[in-house]
């Protein structure tokens, strides 16, 4: 089995595959960023204690939990062109208006990951030891200062493992964006496979690249976790007695 999918010689597919990998990474990062924004909003709604935002947020999470991501992607893809075409017609434009595929993909990934991230952020804030927040109250910190100096720093440390997991998820789900035609890694592999009739080689190469990025990100997150927890966790975060 030749490894032409990744050869960098003239006529080789290497450069295209690597470029597509770049698109995948960029796409995933964009989706993740949007997901974080949604997650912050969603968890804030649930932590607020107000009935309406809480229920809305929970409904959103439950929906994303129960529905395949592929359906969401189709909704965004077909829905966006519908909405824009309608808007376009309102403004006098003619014919079909399309949204850039990258944006659709990032939006879909963001909406899907936002649900998971809502749970991650909510859990992280709730895991902050209440005693430490109470001490901040006792020492006169205002609510804003408490949030900034105690709750959020501690919550971030709790959120890191969950963030890492969701990132791995987004990275893999980004492959689904290939169905709407965006040339990320998966689609590029399909193109190569169709052209050379060497489907196995190409998808194997794609798989290997996904694995590489997953492994590298995993290590990155573990390093970040270790640094965030420096001196802190010995089986837990928060005031514990060393023996």
């Amino acid at each position: 089995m030749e490894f032409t999918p990744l050869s960098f010689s003239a006529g080789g597919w290497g450069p295209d595959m690597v470029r597509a990998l770049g698109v995948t990474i960029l796409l995933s990062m964009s989706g993740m960023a949007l997901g974080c924004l949604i997650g912050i909003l969603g968890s804030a709604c649930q932590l607020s204690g107000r009935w309406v935002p809480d229920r809305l947020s929970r409904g959103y999470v439950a929906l994303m939990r129960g529905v395949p991501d592929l359906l969401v992607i189709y909704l965004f893809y077909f829905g966006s062109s519908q909405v824009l075409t309608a808007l376009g017609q309102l403004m006098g434009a003619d014919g079909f208006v399309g949204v850039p595929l990258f944006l659709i993909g990032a939006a879909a990934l963001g909406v899907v990951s936002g649900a998971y991230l809502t749970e991650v952020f909510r859990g992280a804030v709730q895991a902050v030891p209440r005693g430490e927040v109470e001490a901040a109250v006792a020492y006169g910190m205002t609510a804003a200062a408490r949030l900034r100096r105690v709750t959020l720093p501690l919550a971030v440390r709790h959120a890191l493992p969950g963030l890492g997991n969701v990132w791995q998820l987004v990275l893999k789900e980004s492959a689904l964006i290939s169905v709407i035609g965006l040339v990320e890694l998966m689609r590029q592999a399909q193109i190569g496979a169709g052209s050379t009739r060497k489907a196995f080689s190409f998808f194997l190469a794609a798989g290997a690249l996904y694995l590489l990025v997953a492994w590298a990100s995993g290590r990155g997150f573990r390093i970040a976790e270790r640094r965030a927890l420096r001196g802190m966790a010995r089986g837990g975060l928060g005031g514990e007695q060393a023996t």
Partner: protein
Amino acid sequence: MTDAIVLKDIRKVFGRLEVLHGVTLRAAKGEVVSILGASGSGKSTLLRCANRLETPDAGEVRLGDLVVPAVKADRRTVDLLRQRTAMVFQAFNLWSHRTILENVMEAPVHVQRRPRGEVREEARALLDRVGILDKADSYPAQLSGGQQQRAAIARALATRPEVMLFDEPTSALDPELVGEVLRVMRDLAAEGRTMLVVTHEMGFARDVSNRVVYLHQGQVEEQGPPDQLFTRPESARLRQFLGLAEQ
């Protein structure tokens, strides 16, 4: 003798249960008051009303010239109350993401807005005083329980409080670590600090306090100087609590 702090007619209800039935507690400047009682007597709740970690349903707290009513106390007044008192918790509650030194400096720098350099020096002196200067750059999880509590005491001292509040400071410690914390507390008492201490440590209450208050089911059952309360308690319940035979 001027009163450093007065908790007047404090009433507190949790749901249907009235935990404090109008308790009055005062401490003069320099007085060490020990608060004893069985679990459920309301002693921790009373102490936590002093810095408004619990909000009383009736009554008021006076800290020197500051009056904090139960109802309609504004934000600013409460913040001032908390800035001028300091609490040491049973669970230490040191901020786990900051070093010991940073813990001690946190409130003076970020709440009281004192200059960082001055605070750092004072913080280091305090850590030295409680005997853990060598741990200044360590994180709480790396210290033993006794060390953490001493750090918490240093953190409390750093805010230069008018009144210090101790909520069962040694209850969560292994027996052999209790001594080092009590030693520090005795020092503080000796130098004239005003201290309200909820404790089970009878030795401390007897040897160090100026006055002992015994709480039973949300009311002051008896109070007085320690030698009186410990040797000739009047109330039968107190006698039972102290484990003394009928006299």
